[in-house]
Structure formats: C-alpha cells, structure tokens
C-alpha cells in the first residue's frame, strides 16, 4: 500500500504543452506514471508526449477519466485551474506552481474543503510513491520503495531526506511535498492521518521550517492520534525574524514561528528530533531499530 497515488493513478496534466509541464511529464512517463491526457485551452485535439490534449478538464473527464490532476499553469491562473479540476470531479489535485496570491488560496481552500477534495500545494514538488507513480518534479532516481512516509514543506530538503533514507536501505512508502505557502491545500495533519492508516508506512519523517504554527498543531495531533514513530527536522534555526526566507510562508512574524518553538513543542509531544538535516535518515533508522 501507499498513500494518495499508486500504479492505478490516471493523471491529467493541466498546462500540458508548456515547457515545464513538458519536461516534468516526460520524466514522469519515464518513471512509469500513467498520464492519460492533458489540458491546454485552445489546443484540444492535438497529441502531446503521446497523450491526447483537451480544451478543458471536463472534456478530458469524459474522454479519458483521470482520477488525479497536476497543475503547471502560471500563478495568476491557478485559482481557475484548481477550481476547474474540482468542478469536473477530480478528487486529487496537485499544484506545482509557485507564487499563487494568498487571497486566491483562501477562496480555493474553502471551496475544495466543501467538496472534499485533496489539494496538494501550491508551491510544492508533488507526490511520489516509489516504483509506482511520480506526480511531480522530484528526481525519481533517488527514491526507493520502502517503509518511511515523508511529508515536507520544502522541495530540495525533501530530496535530502529521501536520499538519506534510500542510502540507509529504508526506502519510502510515499513522499508528499505539501509546499511552502502560508495556505497549503494539504496540512501536515492531513498527511499524518493518511500515513497513520497506511500499512506500508512504519515511520514518518516530517520536514518543517520556520513560519506559522503548522508544526505545533501537527505535534499535538501526533501526541493524540499517531501511534507510528515520527521523526522531524525543522529548517531555519539561523533565520532572522521578519524576513521572508524564499518561501512565502517561511517568515518569523511577531516573534511567532521560530524553529526553537517548533522543536520544543515537537519534543514535548514525543516526536524524535533530527537536530541537523544530516541526521534525518540516521534518526529514522535508529527509531525503526
């Protein structure tokens, strides 16, 4: 088993014919992902990377029945693309694009919650279940099927955690990049819930960073509801207050959201802390025995 995506995933790519979508779709197909089609308004009827192009998600729904969608459209159009996929009945939507306005996300989040849709991102690397399906921009080669579930707010930092768990022979059940924005579609808690219920997952690595209180909320959830061991690393211990550290959500504001506060809370709730990013894999190995 795994969570969210597997070999039965039928993927639709929104913004299919753009350069980023093309590059990453090629890589995903090579990895074995079943891309059943793509959407680029005005280019319906064409074939791209061997898959049909549609003018709308609704057209694609009728013709090829995708059960997941990945979005590469530019930030100003993401609100529309997410809501289009939602309206067409897709239940898993992954938005890779960075730079979506926060107020757009407030509206989108409310709507997808009402519809019971799982949105991953925006501003995220996507989701991969090693050996089965890659829905995202992560390098497939560093992954290995295994027992660690990974959840992260950061892209390349996730790759570090993946590489370490692969090198130590643990492998990953599924890796979920929830993204670095202040209003993410999926929270740490949503992903923890899924990993807790997944048989293949024996331990969970949660990679957090400064800003907001998502890690603190996750810590309480772990204490109360998660029986599997959780290992956490928090980036930004040296970050100054009041400065946005790349990600829109990575900012210490009004004294809140520091790495020290998060680590303290996580420790109190029984989470295993990797003090340094180099120790994430080793900590997972130690915990799994």
């Amino acid at each position, binding site marked *: 088993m795994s969570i969210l995506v597997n070999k039965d995933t039928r993927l639709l790519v929104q913004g299919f014919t753009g350069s980023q979508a093309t*590059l*990453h779709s090629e*890589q995903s197909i090579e990895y074995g992902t079943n891309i059943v089609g793509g959407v680029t308004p005005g280019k319906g009827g064409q074939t791209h990377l061997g898959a049909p192009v549609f003018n709308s998600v609704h057209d694609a729904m009728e013709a090829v029945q995708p059960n997941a969608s990945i979005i590469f459209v530019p*930030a*100003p159009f993401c609100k529309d693309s997410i809501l289009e996929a939602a309206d067409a009945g897709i239940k898993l939507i992954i938005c890779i694009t960075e*730079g*979506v*306005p*926060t*107020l*757009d996300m*407030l*509206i989108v989040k*409310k709507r997808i919650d009402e519809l019971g849709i799982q949105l991953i991102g925006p501003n995220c690397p996507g989701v991969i279940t090693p050996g089965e399906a890659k829905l995202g*921009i*992560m*390098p497939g*080669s*560093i992954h290995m099927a295994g027992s660690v579930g990974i959840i*992260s*707010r*950061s*892209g*390349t*930092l*996730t*790759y*570090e955690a993946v*590489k370490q768990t692969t090198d130590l022979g643990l492998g990953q059940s599924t890796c979920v990049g929830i993204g*670095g924005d*202040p*209003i993410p579609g999926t929270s740490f808690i949503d992903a923890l819930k899924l990993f807790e219920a997944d048989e293949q997952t024996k331990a969970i690595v949660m*990679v957090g*960073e*400064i800003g*907001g*209180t*998502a890690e603190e*909320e996750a810590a309480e959830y772990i204490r109360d509801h998660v029986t599997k061991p959780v290992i956490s*690393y928090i*980036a*930004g*211990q*040296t*970050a*100054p207050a009041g*400065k*946005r*550290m*790349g*990600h*829109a*959500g*990575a900012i210490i504001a*009004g*004294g809140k959201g520091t*790495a020290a506060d998060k680590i303290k809370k996580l420790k109190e709730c029984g989470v295993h802390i990797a003090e*340094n*990013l*180099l120790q994430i894999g080793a900590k997972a190995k130690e915990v799994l025995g």
Partner: protein
Amino acid sequence: MNLHEYQGKQLFAKFGLPVSKNKVITSAEDAINACRDIGGTKWVIKAQVHAGGRGKAGGVKLINTPEEAVDFSNHWLGKRLVTYQTDAQGQLVNSILIEECTDIAQELYLSAVVDRGTQRIVFIGSSEGGVNIEEVAENTPEKIIYEPIDPLTGPMPFQARKISKILGLNPEQSKEFSKMLPQLTDLFVTHDLTLLEINPLVITQGGKLHCLDAKINIDTNAIYRQPEIQEMHDPSQEDPRESEAAMHDLSYVSLEGNIGCMVNGAGLAMGTMDTIKYFGGAPANFLDVGGTATQERVSKAFKIILADPEVKVVLVNIFGGIVRCDLIAEGILAAIEDVGVSIPVVVRLEGNNADIGSTILAESGAEIVSLNNLEDAAIKAVELSK
C-alpha cells in the same frame, strides 16, 4: 512588500476611513506651505521609513510653528533613522509626513491579517492601543478579540458589534465602526494585503474614531495585479543586495556571518545555513538560486554574494534534481570565471551525475573544493572561514 505610513493613509482615505488632513514633502522648502495648506496652529511631523519605533528615535515630533517643520525636514531628509526595529545603519528618510494634530482621548488597537490557522482574514482588536500588541496578548489576553471573516459573507454587522465591545466603544462609535469594518475588509481584499495595522486607532476628544497610524504589507505574490501598489514601491527602504537579487528572481537575505551560501531550494538553503552554524561557522546570507541552477543564475548569485565584503568563502550546495550535476558543474565554473571569484569556493553536488560533476570541478584547476557530502563540505567551509 511594505508601504510607508503616508501611502497607507492614502489608501485609507480612498476607502473612506478617517485619517488626519496631511501633506507629504520630500524637500524642506515645501514644509511651510504644507503646514499652511493643512491649517491650524499645531502639527505632527513624521519621518517616513519602513520601520516602527520612530517616535522613540526622534523621528516623530509635535510642532507649533511651520519653521519647526523646516528644521525637522532639514535635519532628517537624506539621513538615516535608526530605531529598535532597524539594523545599525537605519533606514533612509526621503519623505516626511505633516499632519494636523489630533486631540486624543483614548488609544485602541486594530489590525487584520491573513491567519494561517483559521485560513481566514482575521481582525484583531484591543482596548489597549499604542503599545506592543504581543505583550497585551501575553499578559491580558481577555483584552484582545480575534474575529475571522468568512470569505462568503464578508464582515457582518454583528462582528463589528463584537469587536466594538472589546474596544469599549459607545453606541455612536460602534455605529461608526460598523461602517469602517467593511471598508477595511474591502481595502484588504482589493489590494491583496497580508497585514493592515492601525496602532493606534484613537477616539478623539470629540468622541470620533480616527486612524492615527497605518502599517500595510502587500502579498508579494499578488503584486503583478496591483499597478497602484507597484507605484508605491520604495527601493530605498530595502537592502540593496536584496532588491538586486529580487530583480533577478533570486531570493536573498543578508546575515551577519562570513560564509556565503548558494543553494537550490529555500528549505535546503535554510538547512545549509543551520548546518554551517552546527559546525561552528556563521552564514553570511540566505540565497535560493532556484530549481534550475543555470550558469546565468549562478553568475548573478556569485555577484550578489561577493558584494558583501565580509564573505571569506562561498559554500555552494546544489541538490541536482531534474538538472544533471555535470551541467551544473560547468555552469559553476563558467560563472566563477565570468565573475572573477578570488576567494575559496566549496561545492557540494548531489543528484544525477554528481560524480561526473565533481570530477569536472576537481580537474578544472580553479580554486574549488568539491565534496559530495554536505557534512564534509560544511566543515571545510567553516575551516576556511576562520
């Protein structure tokens, strides 16, 4: 992106909120006319910088003659104001706000933020104004109200009444506030704000509500659709290296240390800074060079990092995802040559073709230490920085 107080008040006025009659000047010559245009016999004069704590630093003054406005302007224009919120260099004063004087009966606090927990715009109000709101939250939480706005309904009159109660407003003022709340929400949504703070919101001697200060932050992601706000951008209030980096689509934040950092990905960039600290060094900056570390981007990143005279060594940490590390290595070499880097560079490459990339760097003859492991690379960089 931050706005100046006077810009915030322009937006307040545009949305019908009560602000003092005011003038903005950029030259001391205009001070006398500004005071006369405003009228009256008492004015408040305020240096405009993107930082709080101006009053204590001498950047705000109550004046009784227009000549004092000239003196104040001569003193501050072109100088840097240092407050507890700025760094030691302070912020450049290039504009000054002159306002009619308000007789204050009581100071209150009001703000609105995008709250990540409730995923709503939340209004925060308190009867304790003019002070640090974090302290009020810590010491007397019962004096603060947090009121989330449903995006479907917008702010409702009952919510204005709830906030009014905590602010301690009388029925007349509460009615006024019921008008203000939708105006503030409208401003927040129309211009893609992430923060709007009025500290203090005052009750005048005449019993009216009045916005005495204005602090506004705009969502950087939404700037593309805010032409009016783009016009308000004041680059003089930002670290020049950070502005330069932003122009090239690089995320850069300068820090106090001496190890320059160039990393792909924001999370890994923070993680790299932490690793340097862990091994006893001090990072000079945060820099996310982006997912595709091309030669062009790496060159720009080197230029920005090396503009900091404190930097003694540069640590490049690239986790090559989709992009092959041999291509990244060639890009780094070309950038080093192009920029003329003369200090040691430690490079850690990981990902596709990392070995080939490292070999290219090792055999280049450039002053590069190439290590595949982040631990070794961080230790080496720290050693070279001492």
